[in-house]
């Protein structure tokens, strides 16, 4: 396996710097929200992690389609990497949302449409990882995983649109929802901080994605060496 390319090393540095800058913007630049005060600052990373999580699940479905068309294991590695990182980011978004909800809604969790669809989405992809492990044949595993991510991706738009389609207490950032609790008027500084956090987490996602793909390639190499040893 080749050592880290220069572009990846540079991406690591850029990711760390952007992350620190995003933290700086959240704590030093974005104004304090009047009703929720400091806890509202969770919002910036909550929305950014949820965004990259959902984007990653869609990317996994795209990789799945390519895998089915090209019958190439490379796309299975890419698909797995996208799912794993998205699962982590989406779990962070769920936990961050729960922490934000406690002082705002008075509870960590409630079975309202957004939270329910988000929990289902997370469980669908946890099941993906568990089911993959039960298939030994790499080609069969790749085919099964590709179809699974394709079907699983249907839950992404459902989760995204749930706050717009159903009556829910979850705030809508863009647009309005009269039934929501914890919604607030975004100032231009808040909006800029939110978009910077979205950009930062997108870059962090790409960085981790690259690392995870390299890890998948290394795992594939180990699998090949083991097969050679057995023959």
């Amino acid at each position, binding site marked *: 396996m080749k050592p880290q390319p220069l572009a990846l090393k540079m991406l690591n540095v850029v990711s760390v710097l952007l992350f620190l800058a995003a933290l700086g913007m959240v704590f030093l630049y974005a104004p304090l929200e009047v009703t929720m005060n400091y*806890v509202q*600052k969770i919002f910036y990373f909550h929305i950014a*992690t949820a965004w990259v999580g959902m984007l990653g699940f869609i990317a996994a479905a795209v990789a799945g389609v390519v895998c089915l068309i090209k019958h190439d294991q490379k796309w299975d590695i890419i698909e797995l990497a996208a799912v794993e990182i998205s699962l982590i980011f989406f779990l962070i978004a769920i936990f961050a949302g729960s922490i934000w909800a406690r002082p705002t809604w008075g509870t960590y969790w409630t079975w309202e449409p957004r939270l329910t669809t988000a929990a289902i989405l997370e469980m669908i992809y946890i099941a993906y990882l568990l089911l993959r492990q039960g298939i030994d044949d790499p080609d069969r595993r790749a085919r099964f995983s590709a179809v699974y991510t394709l079907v699983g991706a249907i839950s992404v738009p459902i989760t995204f649109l749930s706050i717009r389609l159903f009556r829910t207490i979850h705030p809508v950032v863009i647009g309005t929802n009269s039934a929501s609790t914890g919604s607030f008027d975004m100032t231009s500084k808040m909006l800029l901080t939110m978009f910077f956090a979205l950009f930062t987490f997108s870059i962090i996602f790409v960085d981790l994605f690259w690392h995870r793909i390299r890890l998948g390639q290394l795992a594939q190499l180990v699998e090949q060496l083991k097969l050679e040893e057995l023959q």
Partner: protein
Amino acid sequence: MIEYATSIKYMLAGYVMILTMLSLYIVSLSIRWRNLKRDIQTLKEIQKKD
């Protein structure tokens, strides 16, 4: 309106959780990478002996 002390407490809890989970994932990537490298080393040594 949420009290300042309560608000700060939950904000800190949120950011500590985010940093912890991201760090744990990066550490897990690094451990898995190291283990796979070790596996490759061992498998190559076995192949040489054979």
